[in-house]
């Protein structure tokens, strides 16, 4: 019996799809099963097709696949939207009593379970619980112990009172019993085993927020924007309980400037936004860099340009991250490749920011941000978190950084490019900071020598960081293979599973996933050792491929996807095989 299950609930936005999916995902996670979720959603509050998909297995799952075993269809459209993913024996749970669902045609070879979701929910205490009835029905189909669902329902509804919790439990059982009785003769092909494993379930945005708190971030200012808003929602309340403050600013311009002020006052400070917000922040980004203010700026990428497709996946902002802003701006660009890395790379980002006194772009993509994944809790072992605040100067040491007139030199052109920092309030440290070119004291200058000295000083930080830090990468597949695949961001998960498909068809691949985009690991040797190099990314032009070509002075093949949907393991494997078979690409 298959142990893995691909499950989905779909309907209209406003139908409670998200919370229902989350309840089931948590139930699976609590039962010690691995979970990987994905969402199809539209940029509207009510109406429009939306779906929540779960892949679950006793083994780790890293991506989505084009397959659905059980589908809860709250609308007829849900079936049409997912027809391609349904297969022989797929189970579709729907409510045939619903006016719009009465003439539903279940595709041939699939099992339609007509369950009176609404009536059963009313029996349990209210029509609103029809989704929970469906969850109960799904538990029966998948032979998943319904007790696990109870805990999730408690968590979701406990603040609404015990009566509501009990009604929901009853609703789930009515759904389960209905399927058990009415479809007793139907042989469902699933049996979801539970384990004693402990898992937590979270998405990339939440991991970034948690990483920020772990890293000692105390100040966050942001403006709501999909798909970065979850970071702010996560931090709200939680940051305050750790002595910090979340400010919802009037716009992104205010957000980054609030964060800048807090950072100047000595707080670890952060803002998060998505592409359009990054555009608005770009002017101040230059000021942050030239005033040498440590700050983490998180960009959760969505489809662009302009407002593009706010709820769809893309990795189109790399060039903006690497080159955005007028003039030449030293910056770090760190891009986690998994949900767990969203946590750890956020911690690192704060350390880089303060150690080198630069803005650090923390780049995630929508697929990473909204994907929930299970992890053993020790993945986020807080004892492993290290904080490095860099060169902070107190009263006792300030004189070492003053000039002969006793003035503090916040932009002293130190050999490593990193100058001392004195937080406001430190006696003898009063100083000016400005976006104008300045001297060591922070005062405006147009002196040619000082200009060159300060530009060189700021750039030297990057050289120092290149030497001092380990800009490593993650490697999978066959290390001796002549076929090298490179990717960044959320593609890692799909690519890891694609390796299994490729292996089955006899194609060996060495896969490198790169989490540091600037400074970044030198991959020249790895590229030279390979016969074929393919760069996989969710954009049309191959922005990372361009960078790889530039660094290694070679041509690479490209697999690009920019339809708004993340890579799926099976389609990725197919695309890579095609590329390997294709002749070398002309440079366009």
């Amino acid at each position: 019996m298959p142990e893995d299950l691909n499950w989905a609930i779909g309907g209209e936005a406003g139908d409670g799809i998200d919370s229902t999916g989350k309840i089931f995902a948590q139930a699976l996670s609590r039962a010690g099963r691995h979970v990987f979720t994905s969402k199809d959603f539209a940029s509207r509050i009510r109406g429009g097709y939306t779906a929540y998909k779960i892949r679950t297995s006793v083994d780790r799952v890293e991506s989505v696949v084009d397959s659905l075993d059980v589908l809860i269809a709250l609308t007829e459209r849900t079936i049409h939207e997912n027809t391609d993913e349904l297969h022989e024996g797929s189970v579709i749970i729907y409510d045939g009593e619903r006016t719009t669902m009465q003439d539903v045609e279940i595709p041939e070879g699939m099992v339609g379970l007509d369950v009176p979701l609404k009536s059963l929910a009313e029996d349990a205490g209210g029509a609103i619980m029809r989704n929970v009835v469906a969850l109960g029905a799904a538990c029966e189909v998948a032979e998943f112990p319904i007790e696990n669902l109870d805990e999730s329902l408690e968590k979701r509804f406990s603040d609404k009172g015990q009566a509501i919790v009990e009604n929901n439990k009853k609703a789930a059982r009515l759904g389960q019993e209905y399927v058990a009785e009415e479809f007793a003769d139907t042989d469902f092909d699933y049996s979801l085993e539970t384990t004693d494993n402990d898992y937590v379930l979270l998405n990339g945005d939440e991991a970034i927020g948690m990483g920020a708190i772990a890293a000692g971030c105390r100040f966050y200012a942001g403006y709501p924007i999909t798909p970065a808003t979850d970071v702010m929602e996560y931090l709200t309340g939680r940051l305050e309980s750790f002595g910090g403050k979340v400010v919802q600013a009037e716009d992104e311009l205010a957000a980054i400037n609030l964060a800048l002020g807090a950072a100047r006052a000595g707080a670890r400070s952060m803002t998060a936004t998505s592409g359009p917000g990054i555009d608005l922040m770009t002017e101040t980004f230059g000021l942050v860099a030239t005033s040498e203010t440590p700050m983490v700026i998180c960009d959760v990428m969505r489809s662009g340009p302009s407002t593009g497709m706010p709820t769809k996946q893309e990795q189109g902002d790399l060039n903006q991250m690497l080159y955005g802003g007028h003039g030449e701006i030293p910056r770090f660009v760190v891009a986690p490749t998994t949900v767990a890395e969203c946590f750890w790379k956020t911690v690192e980002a704060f350390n880089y920011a303060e150690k080198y006194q630069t803005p650090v772009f923390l780049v995630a993509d929508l697929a990473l941000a909204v994907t929930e994944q299970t992890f053993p809790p020790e993945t986020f072992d807080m004892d492993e978190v290290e904080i490095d605040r860099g060169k902070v100067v107190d009263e006792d040491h300030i004189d070492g950084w003053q000039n002969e007139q006793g003035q503090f030199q916040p932009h002293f052109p130190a050999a490593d490019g990193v100058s001392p920092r004195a937080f406001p309030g430190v006696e003898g440290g009063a100083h000016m900071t400005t976006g104008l070119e300045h001297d060591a004291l922070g005062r405006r200058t147009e002196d040619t020598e000082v200009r060159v000295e300060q530009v060189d000083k700021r750039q030297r930080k990057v050289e120092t960081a290149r030497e001092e830090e380990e800009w490593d990468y993650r490697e999978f597949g066959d290390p001796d293979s002549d076929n090298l695949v490179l990717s960044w961001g959320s593609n890692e998960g799909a690519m890891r599973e694609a390796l299994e498909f490729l292996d089955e068809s006899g194609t060996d691949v060495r896969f490198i996933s790169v989490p540091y985009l600037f400074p970044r690991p030198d991959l020249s040797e790895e590229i030279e050792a390979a016969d074929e190099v393919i760069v996989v990314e969710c954009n049309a032009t191959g922005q990372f491929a361009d960078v790889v070509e530039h660094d290694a002075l070679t041509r690479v093949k490209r697999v690009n996807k920019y339809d708004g949907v993340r890579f799926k393991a099976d389609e990725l494997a197919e695309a890579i095989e095609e590329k390997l078979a294709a002749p070398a690409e002309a440079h366009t």
Partner: protein
Amino acid sequence: MSSDVRFTDFKSDKQPTWCPGCGDFGTMNGMMKALATTGNDPDNTFVVAGIGCSGKIGTYMHSYALHGVHGRALPVGMGVKLANPNLEVMVAGGDGDGYSIGAGHFIHAVRRNVDMSYIVMDNRIYGLTKGQASPTSREDFETSTSPEGPKQPPVNPLALALAAGGTFIAQSFSSDSQRHTEIVKKAIEHDGFGFVNVYSPCVTFNDVDTYDYFRDTIVDLSETDHDPTDYDDAKSAILDADKEYQGVIYQDEGSVPWDEREGLTDSMADIPDGAPEGAMDLVREFY
């Protein structure tokens, strides 16, 4: 904080490049005097400025300071104050910086009522870009970009502040040094957002709103029966388009600053060497 701070301690050794006679000299001197007499010193003071002639102020003063981008000084100031409420935060700007490009932030800074002061050097013209109309320029004021006048009524910053829920709204005249200093001092001492619009004449590009004009027309509210704690009094003064007033126009005595309401009292600069105590609970929330 030391008690023997003099206002000259807030002066840097840089000579201002403002035009001789510029109103900003008087505005700045008043700010420095007010800071010194309210018990502040350069090491606990943070001055933020935007772009324009007013933006140069951080260079001429001595304190912790940031000279930012155009129109965004207020959010920076709020960030500083929220992250360390023990600091004295003063934001300086011009009429272009504050009422044009930064108008949105102005409204929100006023309504947030963070405990800081905001001093606007209002010369009713763009000086540093050599004489274009500003949001407070008169409707018929002829400039290089408005040869027949802007043909739009000027912004009334005091009315904006009142409408946005301002808790301290004042106006001063930079050449009336004593009054100006007193008013800025009251803005600093106010529990909340102390907003002062300062008539700070531009002697080079504005030949209408001159020192003589203000001297002749300004009405000192302390010499009238104006009650700054009376909202209706404040409203009539602010909406009186025919008069130029100086003094505290409105002060809400019940004002509680946002940082205080949020319970912010400590500097956020101190953090532990590792993850904060109890951080593992954050992970357990995801069970």
